């Protein structure tokens, strides 16, 4: 008997390992992929899910919070829904299975299952570090997804929606996406649940932006109230590449969205915007790391949180500026509108700077509704509940309005926000 087995596995840990065991023989992969899966699941079994003692999981003790994991159901079926922005091209992955029917010109895509089967996926399956629980769970269990490439110079007017829909059970998906030099596109990675049954979803996206690529990537998380969502975005920004990354959390019971990236080409720029709409008994964590590796790169990060009920939220943001990365300009802020005494938001912004000629700053605030603004709206005959909703909406809508170049997109995202607020405020 080895030592680690002395640690009693939780119900969730057991369920994850069982899910793997039950699918052995069905999970796709060549020899290398299959043996990596084995290693990852073995690590999960021996190390367990991360607890608060693991620094990067301090505010989200996954081992305690993840009480149960529904078992995988291969017969689960999710309907396709209309894209959030009318006129978008839709690539859908339903209950883990990719559908490649409507590919716009300039985009090539194939099912990630094939990359697993031919072994080309193996390098990307490695975890980011010993604390990469999402990478580990996903790498062990991933069944499908999409490998997408945008041709050099390709430009798209309408957004591309990657629709990841789940009815119940489990889905583990991957999306390696490469943007060719000078390409320009808006992509919406949309996670949604088609009914109220519990789902457990993990998803890893790996973005590579070549020189001068200009990308808006929106993660719209609209899981159901019983769902667990473990998401991870990895990104690498080449020379003069621009990424406007927007994370909108508007659903789920237990959510962790990680964003890990590096600015590895001079002139690279990241705009990170986060909107966390938190209600009920949910727990939502956005964890971000960015390393500025070369000189003359820039980033701004603004996170806006709205907390109702007993919801708990976390933002961890860490910006690393490498020794040679002079002239880095980075600004990070996290603002929370706390609308309930029982709600809670923890913000941990961090800067680790090894270069001396840089401009970096961060700040975190917690605020309440502005009483003067509220009175102004009331004094015009707007009832209090509606006036409050308008102000809460305004607090987050400012971020969406930055996408003003695409009116339909702004309208669609504002619709998501106001629909959520109508239900929770």
């Amino acid at each position: 008997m080895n030592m680690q087995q002395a640690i009693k596995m939780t119900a969730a840990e057991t369920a994850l390992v069982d899910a793997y065991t039950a699918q052995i023989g069905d999970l796709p992969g060549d020899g290398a992929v299959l043996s990596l899966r084995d290693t990852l699941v073995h690590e999960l079994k021996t190390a367990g899910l991360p607890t608060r003692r693991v620094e990067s999981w301090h505010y989200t003790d996954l081992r305690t919070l993840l009480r149960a994991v529904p078992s995988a159901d291969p017969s689960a079926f999710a309907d396709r829904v209309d894209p959030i922005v009318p006129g978008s091209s839709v690539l859908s992955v339903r209950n883990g299975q990719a559908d490649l029917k409507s590919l716009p010109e300039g985009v090539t895509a194939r099912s990630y299952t094939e990359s697993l089967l031919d072994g080309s996926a193996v390098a990307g399956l490695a975890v980011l570090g010993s604390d990469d629980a999402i990478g580990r769970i996903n790498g062990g269990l991933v069944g499908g997804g999409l490998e997408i490439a945008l041709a050099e110079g390709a430009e798209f007017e309408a957004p591309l929606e990657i629709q990841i829909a789940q009815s119940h059970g489990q889905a583990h998906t991957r999306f390696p996406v490469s943007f060719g030099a000078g390409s320009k596109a808006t992509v919406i990675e949309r996670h949604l649940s088609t009914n109220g049954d519990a789902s457990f979803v993990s998803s890893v996206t790996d973005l590579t932006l070549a020189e001068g690529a200009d990308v808006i990537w929106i993660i719209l998380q609209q899981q159901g109230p019983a769902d667990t969502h473990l998401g991870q975005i990895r990104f690498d920004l080449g020379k003069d590449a621009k990424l406007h990354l927007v994370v909108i959390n508007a659903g789920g019971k237990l959510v962790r969205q990680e964003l890990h990236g590096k600015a590895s080409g001079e002139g690279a720029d990241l705009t990170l915007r986060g909107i966390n709409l938190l209600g009920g008994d949910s727990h939502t964590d956005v964890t971000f790391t960015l390393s500025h590796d070369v000189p003359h790169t820039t980033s701004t990060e603004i996170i806006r949180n709205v907390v109702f009920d007993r919801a708990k939220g976390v933002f961890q943001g860490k910006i690393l500026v490498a020794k040679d990365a002079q002239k880095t300009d980075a600004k990070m802020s996290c603002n929370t509108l706390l609308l309930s005494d029982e709600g809670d938001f923890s913000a941990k912004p961090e800067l680790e700077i090894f270069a001396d000629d840089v401009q970096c700053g961060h700040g975190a605030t917690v605020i309440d509704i502005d009483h003067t603004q509220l009175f102004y709206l009331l004094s015009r005959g707007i009832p209090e509940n509606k006036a409050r909703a308008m102000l809460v909406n305004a607090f987050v809508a400012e971020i969406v309005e930055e996408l003003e170049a695409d009116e339909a997109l702004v309208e669609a995202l504002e619709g998501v926000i106001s629909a959520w607020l109508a239900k929770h405020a």
Partner: protein
Amino acid sequence: MLEIKNLHARIAEDGTEIIRGLDLTVKAGEVAAIMGPNGSGKSTLSYILSGREDYEVTEGDILYNGESILELDASERAAKGIFLAFQYPVEIPGVATMQFLKVAMNEQRKYRGEDELTTPEFMRRVKEAAAELKIAPEMLRRPVNVGFSGGEKKRAEILQMALLEPKLCILDETDSGLDIDALKVVADGVNALRSPDRAVVVITHYQRLLDYIIPDTVHVLYKGQVIKSGDKALAHELEANGYADIIEAAA
């Protein structure tokens, strides 16, 4: 239309009494001017009339059309026809002006049991009223009051008043920050609303505005009380001599 009887009110937070036994009656059709030194409680009175919760009424009553409004919240008072043009209009980033106007108009209509306005009808009314007040359409595309100059903010207040068609209009130093031409435009806007079933309370420091909006009555507020009332001649007297004599006589 408005009867304020022995009103005492204090700041809810720290209990400081600001309004100390104030009596004032304004009849339908009347334009009443309220004047008084800085800090005498004019803005506080206007806030209390419109239902701001930062103040607590400890004694006395406010009757509007014969009924006490003390139990009504600010939005109900507005829907019943009380409008305050703020001394310092509030900026609300993230709330579009047009959306704000539409929600306000329709919520008031709903409260009164009237049908909501259709979008074309709403647009027509806004366009017309904005043109009268010489408000540029670009201003209406910005968030509420955000980036407006002092004078633009005051004009935007009058635009809201014109659209909401209140019965009791309270103007708190609407003239401050306005250039001569804008003052005329705003005064015309107010005069256009004068009618036998509407009352206007004009808070001001200057005779200038009262040359355009001629008051029926003038009241001097000092330390939370009306210490003297008269007709428009009183305003001229104040302009010429200041408050000292009146304050002394009242002491």
